[in-house]
């Protein structure tokens, strides 16, 4: 289960391409919403957080993960199909979850995506369980929880970190600190702002990496993933910035234009592009081609999602329980039993 090792420069270019694809995808999600084609408005864009690719690229086939409500980027980083993702965000039948989950509940068992979660911190303990599985079966897999700085205030995170350390589990807690939980800047939610320090106090291998630099994230992630695979659980804080509002309706009135300008200047995509060019890994034309290709891919995903068909009404009763077990009885059927023919003595 070892990753195929590519020459470093190719891999860095791959990471750039992945970040660009994420950004393009998120931009299309914004369009989907503006066109009135998204299922609801609870769409959380990960623009500015693309350096998470440094972590996803340090994972291997077979590794699993959970994400939070802002998880599109992570999933694309792990190979998610943009067309099926977009269709899910539009609430369509051929979306990843048949139009039942939407943006906040995408999952893909085949790619190891154990599920996005709309409960802050909700997916974190699941990697503890996955870690137990991998520890017990000695499968060599790791499991990674991706969550925001907001989840640093959820008690279940500390319960989970303690278990991971106690049981020597092959897991990583990856905090994407975009400085905000909705309108609350992290200094207004954390009494003391040293997140790796907290993880260390629970016995984890803890690091912080610059979220404007995907390669720095990747270096930390590779180290942590290697340790995790040996049963030493890790914690990684990716220090990033949420470029836009919390969800599609939020204009972030609680922050200043200056702060936003400074934050957006910490752009992992632009930085990586500049670095590729500067280090001669790709020339401008090649980089432009990557960008264009990403845009085209995501245009197709958007078109696909809009064209796709919504689920039939009767599908709502499916998948409450496993196939083979009777589905919940619709009220119409129950009422017929009560008021219909034969209902009276």
């Amino acid at each position, binding site marked *: 289960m070892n990753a195929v090792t590519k020459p470093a420069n190719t891999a860095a270019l791959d990471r750039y391409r992945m970040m660009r694809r994420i950004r393009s995808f998120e931009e299309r999600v914004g369009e989907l919403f503006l066109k009135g084609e998204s299922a*609801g408005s609870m769409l959380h864009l990960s623009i500015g957080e693309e350096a998470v690719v440094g972590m996803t690229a340090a994972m291997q086939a077979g590794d699993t993960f959970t994400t939070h409500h802002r998880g599109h980027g992570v999933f694309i980083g792990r190979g998610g199909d943009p067309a099926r993702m977009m269709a899910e965000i539009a609430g369509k039948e051929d979306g990843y979850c048949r139009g*039942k989950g939407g943006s906040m509940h995408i999952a893909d068992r085949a790619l190891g995506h154990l599920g996005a979660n*709309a409960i802050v911190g909700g997916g974190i303990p699941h990697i503890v369980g996955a870690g137990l599985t991998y520890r017990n079966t000695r499968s060599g897999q790791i499991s990674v929880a991706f969550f925001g700085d907001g989840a640093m205030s959820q008690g*279940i995170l500390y319960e989970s970190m303690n278990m991971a350390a106690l049981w020597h589990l092959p897991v990583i807690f990856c905090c994407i600190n975009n400085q905000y939980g909705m309108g609350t800047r992290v200094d207004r939610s954390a009494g003391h702002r040293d997140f790796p320090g907290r993880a260390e106090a629970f016995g984890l291998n803890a690091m912080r990496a610059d979220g404007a630099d995907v390669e720095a994230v990747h270096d930390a992630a590779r180290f942590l993933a290697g340790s995790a695979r040996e049963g030493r659980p890790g914690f990684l804080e990716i220090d990033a910035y949420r470029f836009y509002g919390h969800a599609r309706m939020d204009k972030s009135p609680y922050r200043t234009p200056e702060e936003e300008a400074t934050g957006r200047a910490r752009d992992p995509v632009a930085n990586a592009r500049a670095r590729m060019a500067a280090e001669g890994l790709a020339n401008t034309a090649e980089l432009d081609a990557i960008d264009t290709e990403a845009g085209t891919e995501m245009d197709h995903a958007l078109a696909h999602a809009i064209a796709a068909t919504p689920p039939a*009404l009767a599908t709502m009763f499916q998948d409450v329980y496993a196939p083979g077990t009777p589905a919940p009885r619709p009220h119409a059927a129950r009422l017929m039993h009560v008021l219909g023919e034969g209902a009276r003595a």
Partner: protein
Amino acid sequence: MIESTYRDAIRQALLDAMAVDPSIILIGEEVGLYGGAYGVTKGLIDLYGPERVIDAPISEPAIVGAAVGAAMTGMRPVAELMYVDFIGMTMDQLANQAAKSRYMFGGQIGVPMVLRTQGGTGRSAAAQHSQSLEAWVMHTPGLRLVMPATVNDAYHLLRQSLTQADPVVFIEHKGLYTMKGALDVDTPDGAWGAPVTRRAGRDLVILSYSRMLHESLAAADRLAASGVEAEVIDLRCLNPLDMAPLIEAVKRTGRAMVVTEAVVTGSVASEVAARLSETCFDWLEEPILRLGGEDIPIPVSPALERGSIPSAQLIHDTARWLVTREAPEWAA
């Protein structure tokens, strides 16, 4: 008497109550600077300052627990859960602590707090942001449960909740915030704890609360067009629940249905139906019907979400069936 939205009525209730009772504090995520996820607490932090309008970290269990402790020591906290769907992680603090302290401690320590939250469907917010979980609360002795449906009730029931000696769970509906209606800050719709008849009728009683009240009233209008007169009663204060007026109405009409948005199995509708079935037995012409959310998680697809909860049409059809014994088309 002014026109107000449901949202503004709640805000006004908080604003007015805080003005007269300095022990009232708000604790919740985004209640301060942001003004509340649905804008309910907008501007209150400017009026009352950050010591009384407290932006909390995303720590629901400790938010509710802190409210319990503040209430025990002389404050009257209003804890806010952004969505009732998050109540799961707080059920220990709510049901084992807030609800039971007075009892366990032999009456020594009351917990006069209000837990404000909102629930329900209507925004394609999917399975973890669309639920109606009042049944968990109703099954917990020691808690009071209030769910306003009208603008005037949004104001008055909250004001009244803020004078109770015991914990009140106050559940708003996300689909009602922009609804407009009459607000008369001097005159409540009814007494604290009492149901209110929103429409008189002789043929059947529809019992409902929160947003489903409006679907029920719309259904009643349509029913009237075909000669069926439905009485519509708003339960408002679900626990403790004043049964007397409900029993009177059901005995009078002989037919009743309870309409809720929650998953029907184990719901408030089931409790009310069970109570009415036992007390009105000899007066019933037909069984007490329950209409509620389908027994499924809420899907994100707008069409599926809508299809999973009662509509005015479904309520109308079912009520008509109940009264006239003519089955609607979909029941073929």
